[in-house]
């Protein structure tokens, strides 16, 4: 499944390769600017490119946005199948079962995603209002230090709340799968209840998973930083490194969901009737 998810990511991205190659080749493929800007941030060449080849660039950006949305929808679709594997933990993996689960849960996970997206937007607005409540008009601000102090107070708080919401959305996914109801309200409420009841456990697990993710990110960042891709042959190495990191990210995402499935499974065993 892991390789499967990675393969889909690669396939979707590959759709862009040919148009991108043609676009670069025809727009400034014969220009020495290509060579000059590829290894260094060249502001003039970048801004000239954006200005002079705007038509093609807009098309390309639209294509990228379409693919991002497409991939996002595919990821929602796959969530049912992923959780089917991770929660049931079958001895043998079956693509048919995977796809059945994906189809069965698609609409539920679409709604769930929508609810949480709305939740994130609301939280963002609340914190923005909190930040701007004392005014953002510079003429009304006593000092720029006050502004920074406000950022320092509010941003970590926002980060904490947003992360908690993400944590809850991961548990909600598992509960939606486990309870298998066409209306997701009850699984959602149950997941919230359980997360709050066992918040320290849930947060601790999430923290561990995030620390592992951050660790791999740091490793990738350091490796990438020290890899000079100017000599042509190292380009392939850099590409492989980024693919490895992507593979690890997808793997860690699955590990996170699996660990949540296990933990929440333990909570349900603790309850008298075994219900989730």
């Amino acid at each position: 499944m892991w390789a499967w998810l990675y393969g889909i990511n690669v396939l979707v991205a590959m759709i862009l390769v040919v148009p991108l190659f043609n676009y670069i080749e025809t727009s400034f493929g014969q220009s020495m600017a290509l060579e000059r800007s590829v290894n260094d941030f060249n502001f003039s060449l970048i801004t000239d490119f954006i200005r002079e080849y705007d038509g093609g660039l807009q098309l390309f950006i639209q294509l990228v946005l379409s693919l991002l949305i497409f991939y996002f929808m595919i990821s929602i679709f796959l969530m049912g199948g992923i959780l089917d594997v991770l929660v049931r933990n079958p001895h043998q993996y079956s693509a048919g079962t995977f796809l059945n689960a994906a189809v069965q849960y698609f609409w539920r996970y679409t709604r769930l995603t929508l609810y949480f997206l709305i939740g994130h937007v609301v939280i963002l607005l609340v914190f923005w209002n909190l930040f701007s409540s004392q005014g953002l008009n510079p003429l009304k601000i006593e000092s720029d230090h006050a502004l920074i102090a406000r950022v320092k107070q509010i941003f970590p708080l926002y980060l904490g709340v947003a992360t908690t919401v993400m944590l809850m959305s991961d548990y909600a996914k598992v509960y939606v799968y486990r309870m298998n109801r066409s209306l997701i309200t009850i699984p959602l409420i149950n997941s919230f209840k359980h997360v709050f009841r066992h918040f320290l456990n849930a947060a601790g697990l999430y923290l561990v998973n995030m620390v592992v993710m951050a660790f791999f990110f740091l490793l990738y960042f350091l490796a990438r930083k020290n890899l000079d891709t100017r000599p042509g042959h190292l380009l392939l190495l850099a590409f492989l490194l980024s693919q490895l990191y992507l593979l690890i990210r997808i793997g860690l995402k699955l590990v996170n969901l699996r660990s949540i499935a296990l933990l929440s499974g333990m909570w349900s065993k603790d309850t008298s009737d075994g219900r989730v």
Partner: protein
Amino acid sequence: MDGNKNIDLLSCFTFLLFAFQITGLHGQLSPRIANYTMEIRLDTAQKTLTASTVMSWKNISDQPVSELQMHMYYNAFRSSRSTFMEESIWIRGFLNAALQDDCGWSWSEITHFEDASGHILTDSLEYIQPDDGNDNDKTVLRIGLAEPVLPGQTATYRFDWEARIPKSMVRTGYNREYYFMAQWFPKLGVYEPAGMRYAKVDQWNCHQYHSTGEYYSDFGVYDVSITVPEGFVVGASGVLQERREDRGESTWRFVAEDVIDFTWATSPHFIENKYKWKDIDITLLTYPGHEHFKERYFNAIGNAFEYLHAHVGPYPYPVLTVVDPPIHGIFTGGMEYPMLVSSLSFCFFPEGFKAPETLVTHELIHQYFMQMVASNEQEEAWMDEGVTSYYEARIMDHYGGADRSQVKWLGMKFGNGEYNRYEFLNSPNPKIAGNDRKSWEFKYGGYGTIAYNKVAMALKTLEGLIGQEVFDDMMKTYFERWKFRHPCGRDLIEVANEVVTKHYGHTFGDSIHWFFDQFIYGTEACDYAVASVTNRKMLHSAGFVNDTENCLPLDLNNSKEGYESTVVVHRLGEAWLPVEILVKFNDGSSVLEQWDGKARAFDFKYVSEKRIVSAEVDPFRKNNMDCNFLNNSFIVSQKKNSIRKYIYQIITGIQHAMETMTILI
């Protein structure tokens, strides 16, 4: 009664002072045409100024002058219907809040005006609107004189005036306990005799106060005593002569000689930081929490002085005061007045973001272009803003690196010159106007990009064309010839013609007018491109080469040793200028071609054993007016590796972006 006695004593003193100043007994640099002695009292509770002024003015024309014209800048903020406010659409969002909360409007009124003979002229005061006829604009005051000022005569006047200070207005005003008093007092316009600049007849040049373009005034001596509440720190144009404390107030007296304006700032929160560059005493006035910018400011100031001394001329004044306003004084940042400039910094600016350095460098350069070389910013903004922006880029790029002097932060970097080019070319319409109009005539936008950025780019291009040494000779000549005078655009171009011809003869034509016509006053774009590069194997001659009888066969397999190579260059824009083309061959050799750049297309042919590998128009980036650098070069064998690297970067970026998005599921 007491007030009259004070005025009499003041007048005796100032008459003597003027006699001393105007006869030039001590190192006079300028003609000292308009001189002011002012006693100012700041009322921080009422936000008002009360003042008495003694002013002398010399008639330099050969005709008697029967009226004076004065700027009443603070009346620009008298109501929403002044010309300034009508034109300030872009900033109203911010200003409205300040105006509504505290009635931040302002005014300036002369309450008493008399001449040296005792004629009271107060009744003759009349507001006029020479630019737009807007009756609601009261920024220009005409004073009918009882006795005309004769040619060569210096007349003295005394007047009392009051002003309410605007809140948080552009360039000036107060907010909380911060006061930046710029363009604040009733000030004479410039009387231009026929033949001076563009004047066809003797006339006052005294424009209304507009939202763009700042000021134009005559040189003189300012002796200003400012009374503020005790504990307020004052910084001002000029040299501090004395400071007296009396009954909860302190009076600071400054004298500024050979300047065109006087500005001051005060706040009880100012921290004074001192620095000395050669003989110049520099004071940085900053708010608490901004002290860490001290070193950055002083480094930038030292660099700018060093560069300007070497490449333009010496700074003749003994002091410079730099005001770093608090955030609530943001609209007073980035201003230039004689011996006093304002910059701007925020405590969160990282080291790699050079806005404070850029601003202070820019405003310092204005000490030369507009303060000493006192062109008319309202009529020809490019002469000071454009020239200043050019030197700003030159200085910043020289000390900070042409590719990083402006920003070097989070993997992104660009130089000041690069940013100028970006601002100009990426503006909504780089062809919107030429610099052939007054500042307020940029009705549909483009004032900043055309008067500042475009001119900076044009002058950099001129520097590339004639070489930095000749360019410096030109600007040094211009500075020496026109300092403490009022040049117009024509005067700068005349100097350019003279110096370029001296060095190059007629290489660039009979004059270099064509350059200024196209790139300063014109609107056309400039774009050169290498359209194609071909290398064709040479063939033996075929066909009826020698006569009409014998047809020599075409043998494609039997070619000569060698190539016929061609580079075709196109002029895509309307504007032209001489350009260089660097052609490189496969044996490592290269040739630098010269082209006058006038034709729409041109080719360079080579017949030899070597092939062309690349061709590049303007390889040394002399032509900064070229609007597209991407088409300037042509490489015969495409670098597939570079394309691959782009694709790798973009594709992996998109892959990770896709994966990152899934955290929202």
